[in-house]
């Protein structure tokens, strides 16, 4: 029987205060491994493509280790699988990096005979909950689930069941009331190991047991309530604090007990070495910009991710529909049986679609080449002073000067790109889009870069808003043709009649299904991608 609103209120009225037992675990050998892997990730993050991949893999490893009870021997295996063979990197990496690499492997090797203290704590918690007949659930990333399942694999404990896991806000929303929520990692609304704010603001359980590695603080502002947080943005969840803290959300109160445990025989772990890796990586890479997304499946192998509030140009083939062509919200008004309409327009004075890989890049690259040749102008210093903090900036500039090919060589981060164009004097330059709207040059150029990277077919869609009405008007006039094609084909295309200012094609993708529960970078939205690739952003 599903939980009613009255059940939820009866529970909230009866629970008085909930309890958060936060177990902070310090373990020096793991700290060493974590520190070395972090350093590799940081040192390689602005290197060439191969090393950037390695940096990303190191980052993902740490994120996983901090938010799941990964056994130490699996950590070592994962590290060995991720790091390259010794010979190639000896020639490319400096001695410092090589030493860190060796230290990381040594630290991982030291750990294999030891048990992860998180594992012990979790096993104890699960056994106790079962012993007390308490209904418990574990909130974790779908891919972290095997690590939790391994906790009861020894045979002494009954295995964990599907009902013991929550992986998304929808799972949480649909869950009946229960006694205990178990979470590994800090409380954060976005990124790896994220949990819904509702666990504090709309609890369905009485106790939360949280296991965190030392240094991993809960995110300030966690526990967002739209009716109160917009006035008082301060969070009741402090990252640091005393051993027992009372926390209140509206009238929902929590008492948090913090206990410290672990082993730090050599006194290695301290404020200087304790780094909040999850926050650090969020700050420096684009994954911090991941946003919730809804998947529209367009066939058995492909789909498109949209922001949940996107308005998507779409066609409803239902003959009784009053608005066959309309902007619809994925998963809400855009549903199975309809079509997503992807406008591929090629000849309109619209920056976002004029890219053709190189229109804007030629302008700023010319300026960049010129700037390097100006006597007395220290481009390197200007960029560094401007805020580009790349260790190998000179090499990066060489790369950015290369003419556009299949990709446009440019800074990886939008912030750096903006700085570059500012230094080149293109900051105040605007372009007229569709002959009407003035758009900053740097934005158009950045969209061009994004598209060249294949990040999104419709990147820079802001500019499309200008012609949205026109597109919809054209489609409405084409409605008889659209219906005719939809009756015969699953996926089809229609050319825009030549009489229009906008030239191009409409691609109609059938909506085969919708699914919530994704978090993806902006660059992955609105692009037709394989479901395999999309799966990586499944929460």
């Amino acid at each position, binding site marked *: 029987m599903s939980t*009613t609103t009255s059940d939820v209120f009866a529970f909230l009225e009866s629970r008085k205060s909930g309890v958060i037992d936060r177990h902070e675990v310090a373990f020096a050998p793991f700290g060493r491994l974590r520190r070395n892997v972090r350093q590799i990730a940081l040192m390689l993050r602005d290197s060439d493509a191969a090393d950037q991949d390695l940096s990303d893999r190191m980052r993902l490893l740490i994120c996983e280790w901090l938010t799941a009870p990964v056994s130490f021997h699996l950590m070592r295996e994962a590290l060995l699988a991720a790091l390259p063979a010794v010979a190639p990197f000896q020639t490319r990496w400096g001695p410092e990096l090589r030493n860190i690499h060796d230290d990381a492997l040594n630290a991982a090797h030291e750990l294999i005979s030891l048990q992860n203290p998180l594992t012990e704590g979790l096993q104890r918690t699960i056994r106790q909950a079962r012993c007390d007949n308490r209904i418990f659930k574990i909130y974790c990333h779908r891919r972290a689930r095997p690590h939790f399942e391994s906790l009861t694999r020894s045979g002494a404990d009954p295995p964990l069941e599907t009902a013991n896991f929550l992986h998304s806000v929808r799972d949480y929303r649909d869950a009946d009331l229960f006694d205990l929520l178990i979470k590994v990692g800090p409380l954060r609304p976005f990124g790896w190991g994220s949990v*819904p704010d509702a666990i504090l603001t709309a609890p369905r359980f009485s106790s939360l047991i949280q296991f965190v590695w030392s240094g991993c603080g809960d995110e300030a502002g966690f526990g967002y309530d739209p*009716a109160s947080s917009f006035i008082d943005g301060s969070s009741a969840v402090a990252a640091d604090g005393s051993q027992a803290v009372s926390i209140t959300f509206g009238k929902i109160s929590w008492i948090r007990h913090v206990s410290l445990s672990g082993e730090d025989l050599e006194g290695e772990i301290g404020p200087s070495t304790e780094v909040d890796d999850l926050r650090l990586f969020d700050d420096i890479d684009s994954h911090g910009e991941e946003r919730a997304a809804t998947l529209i499946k367009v066939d058995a192998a492909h789909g498109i991710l949209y922001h949940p509030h996107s308005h998507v140009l779409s066609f409803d083939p239902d003959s009784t529909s009053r608005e066959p062509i309309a902007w619809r919200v994925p998963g809400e008004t855009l549903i199975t049986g309809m079509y997503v309409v992807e406008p591929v327009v090629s000849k309109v004075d619209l920056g976002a679609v004029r890219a053709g890989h190189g229109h804007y890049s030629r302008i700023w690259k010319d300026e960049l080449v010129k700037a390097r040749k100006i006597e007395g102008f220290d481009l390197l210093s200007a960029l560094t002073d401007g805020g580009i903090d790349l260790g190998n900036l000179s090499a990066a500039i060489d790369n950015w000067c290369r003419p556009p090919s299949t990709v446009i060589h440019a800074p990886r981060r939008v912030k750096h790109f903006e700085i570059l164009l500012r230094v080149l004097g293109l900051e105040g330059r605007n372009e007229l889009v569709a002959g009407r709207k003035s758009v900053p040059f740097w934005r158009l150029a950045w969209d061009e870069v994004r598209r060249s990277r294949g990040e999104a077919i419709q990147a820079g869609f802001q500019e499309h808003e200008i012609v949205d009405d026109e597109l919809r008007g054209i489609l409405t006039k084409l409605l008889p043709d659209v219906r005719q094609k939809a009756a015969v084909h699953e996926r089809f295309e229609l050319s825009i009649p030549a009489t229009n200012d906008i030239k191009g094609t409409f691609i109609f993708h059938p909506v085969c299904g919708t699914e919530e529960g994704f978090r993806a970078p902006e660059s992955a939205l609105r692009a037709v991608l394989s479901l395999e690739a999309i799966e990586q952003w499944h929460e």
Partner: protein
Amino acid sequence: MSSAQQRQRTLQVLVRRFQTGSTDSPRITASVSKGPPFPMQFSEGNHEWRPIPRWVQFLVRLGYGWPKESGARRVGLVSMPCDSPAPGLIALGALIRDLADPNANDLGAHYTALLRFARQFLQSCGDCKVRCDPELKECGYFAESTGLLRHTDGGRYRVTGIPETTAWGDAIKCSNDRETRWLLAAYAADWRIDGEPALQQHGEASALIPRAYAQIVQEAQAIPANLTHSFSGLCLAGRVRGESPTRDICSSIRLHTGDCDYNLVDLLTIHGWSPSSSVSRMSFYNSRTERFDRYACVPTLVVSDGDTSFLKVVGHKQFQRSDVIGVVHRTLERDRLEVVGNRMADLLQWYEEDKELSEQVPSPPTGITVSVLKQKPS
């Protein structure tokens, strides 16, 4: 007699008929029970009957106590701990509040609305090739006029003309394949736009049942005539998935007193939701199709169901002067919560916290948070 004088006389006739009961129908004798002979019971999702829980009382009271005609627009946000029928309950409270308001009926503006409907049909919609998107066509209208009117005798007619003058004053010429009739201002109450609720209910049998409303808010003093007249000044904006999800969750709430059961769906009297009453005291805005359930609708209070519905309503041109109470639940992704919170934060440029109202509203039960903003004096 000038046209203005004629209209004034028409209005007086309509108001008199409203206050005393139509000359064509028996006088309204329904009375409002003051006290509960039986304590009202509540059930959700077909669970057992129980006293009305505090969360329900609070939400109904919030709607009931929402101020009318203060001169400054208010935007409220109610945050719930789970998906719930809260919007329906707040709207029910506001409906009970409006039952006590002698001006809460569509009589005064009815003929004007019919005239506007007829003019729009004759001047624009009658030969329009777009079915129907006023925004796309940029014709300046909010919704289509079908030109179809229905008389209380059941006959359906199409608007065919608006003569400048007739022997009887203002009139709309209506025809079907059998006859032509004149819709006169003084008898406008006998007509309605086809497909919309009747302006008034003739006969006591299917008038609203006062006892149910009186027992939900015991001090409510419903005006008997309001129980037989439609009103469009209160609006429920449904979920963005469409009308059904809002109706379905409202249907999970039942109230019981004496030997009568009432479903929230029936009590809301939204046109088409319940067969028991032909008058409707609340309009419905479909957030999916962005259409009202009736032609002439500029509500003074809109209660919206869900985050997307709230965002649509707050920014909608037709609700610019309406108070809005948005209801969201917190078991959503952070992004969606932040979009709503940011919208409220944006409003702070022109609005301020309505501390006065916040103090008047009863203390919410654990799990509900409420924020109310009021337009700053210009």
